[in-house]
């Protein structure tokens, strides 16, 4: 385990526990605006963390993660609105649908690496996006699905927040155990040195495909939560510009730390809200921030986090990068 010392291990859980307590108490003190905003942050944190399974841990740059997020959102919206299913059924269906697509898409994508992997994932995601947008009879076309019902018990903003938080924490825990399982470490080994891991008998394509599928499933959960929270789903959720957001959050917060993408999600939404109050040009500011990040750290954020911030982060949260 990271760091090798049991105090570090314990302190990682200590900080996580403290964060959970803080997040749980938070709505008691916050206004409605902040509660709604936090619900979105929590969902996006789940999306970003799911993405980081393949990005940070698997070393795969996918530009199609939005497809799984959107499919989860549509699964929830269609089931609850058009077929009258209970919300929990929708929430279970969301990862199943997303994982099924992720498995098939991933199976093809594993034939390629690096840039072509990014392009192929983008191509598939766009294909799914087009189908969702054009299949008006089933998906509502470009209007999407409005008025996704919400169960009585989640009617209040605080309860909705608690629900999203509980689901996200549960998923984050499961993903934590996945990345720290032998499977998770094999994934890191593949990222660091594919050839060597092959010599060790690791079936790299299969491991990566499984990671891709798991990441898709959790993105589906995030999507299901999202359409339930926003009460709508539209094709924009699957568009490639949506795929860029989890990449951004992972980079912002740090892709080699388990909680990095979540912190990135907080930073992303906080920045957006701060900017939007002052100007209409949020994309401009986001672009400048992103550009500064990329240019100021020529070896990539990757290198920066690995080299400079690692001792700092690993001391607190438990290291996630293989030595």
């Amino acid at each position, binding site marked *: 385990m990271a760091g090798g010392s049991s105090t570090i291990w314990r302190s990682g859980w200590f900080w996580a526990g403290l964060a959970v307590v803080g997040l749980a108490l938070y709505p008691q003190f916050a206004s409605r605006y902040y509660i709604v905003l936090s619900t979105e942050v929590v969902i996006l944190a789940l999306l970003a963390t799911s993405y980081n399974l393949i990005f940070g841990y698997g070393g795969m*740059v996918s530009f199609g993660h939005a497809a799984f997020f959107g499919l989860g959102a549509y699964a929830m919206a269609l089931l609850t609105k058009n077929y009258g299913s209970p919300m929990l059924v929708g929430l279970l269906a969301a990862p199943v649908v997303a994982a099924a697509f992720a498995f098939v898409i991933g199976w093809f994508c594993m034939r390629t690496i690096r840039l072509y992997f990014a392009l192929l994932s983008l191509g598939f995601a766009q294909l799914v996006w087009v189908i969702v947008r054009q299949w008006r009879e089933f998906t509502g076309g470009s209007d999407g699905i409005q008025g996704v019902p919400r169960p009585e018990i989640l009617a209040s903003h605080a309860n909705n927040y608690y629900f999203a938080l509980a689901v996200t924490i549960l998923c984050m825990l499961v993903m934590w155990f996945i990345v720290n399982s032998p499977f998770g470490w094999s994934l890191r080994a593949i990222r660091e040195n594919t050839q060597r891991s092959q010599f060790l008998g690791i079936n790299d394509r299969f491991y990566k495909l499984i990671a891709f599928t798991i990441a898709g499933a959790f993105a589906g959960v995030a999507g299901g939560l999202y359409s339930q929270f926003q009460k709508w789903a539209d094709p924009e959720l699957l568009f490639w510009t949506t795929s860029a957001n989890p990449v951004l959050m992972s980079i912002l917060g740090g892709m080699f730390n388990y909680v990095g993408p979540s912190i990135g999600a907080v930073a992303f939404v906080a920045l957006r809200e701060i900017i939007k109050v002052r100007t209409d*040009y949020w994309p401009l500011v986001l672009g*400048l921030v992103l550009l500064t990040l990329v240019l100021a750290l020529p070896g990539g954020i990757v290198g920066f986090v690995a080299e400079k911030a690692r001792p700092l982060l690993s001391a607190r949260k438990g290291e996630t990068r293989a030595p």
Partner: protein
Amino acid sequence: MTWDIGTIILLIMSGLHHASILFIVAAGLTLVFGVLRVINMAHGSLYMIGAFVAASVIQQTGGAGGFWLALLAAPVAVGLVGAVIEFGVLRRIYQAEHVVQLLATYALILIFDDLVKMIWGAEYKSVSAPAALAGSIRIGDQSVPVYNLFVITWALILAAALWLLIYRTGLGRLIRAAVEDAEMLEALGVNIPRIFSSVFIIGAFLAGLGGVLVAPRGSIGLGMDLDILIEAFVVAVIGGLGSFPGALLGAGIIGMMYSFGTQIAPQMAMAFVFLAMVIVLIIRPWGLFGEPER
């Protein structure tokens, strides 16, 4: 809809027109990738800027000469923007990983989108083709707009010019050498940064040219950057990233898929386009004319 010869000619002409624009834009994308090994996500933004500059030039000058002036001014202006991008951003990240390059140029999309909104506003603009190109000619019992023929001619001229540039000039020889092995070329004393700058500026110029040529045909507005970017991606990927003949063939395929596809199954045309991209990437990731990544 009857499938008489006139209809087919009409569809072919409309497909060729679309293909021409796609070729001009995708050629820039593929040229930049071939030499710089960078996927320029902001290529669509350059195209959009070209269209907006063209609209401004045409509106300011008013007269019939406006379009012809724009045809020169917009690509040059976009080429200058390209120079700024190359000096300011790309030059610093040639050695970086793909994801860094993708993110940096994605950041440029966001920045240019808002800059265009600041300068030109969010309203759609439209300009008309000059009188000389306004009418249409009859083929059989169908009429084909003269402007479409003009665009197709331009694309053909451009394809020939690019071919001459790459295969018959000193710069072209250096570009081809840089595609093969930029490091070796640098070791031989060639100023690689200058080659890279030139190539990127040419790429931007092509995007701008695509923008002007499309201006009289559609409404000019925000969002046209993303539309063309994805289409140009598909064209470049199908033909093989970095390959000119590939871009030409890819543009032809996609142009025809759009024009015939919208006639046969309007809802599915776009899906077929992405399906084509996906299939090519699965079977031959380096495209029809490309070479496997080194």
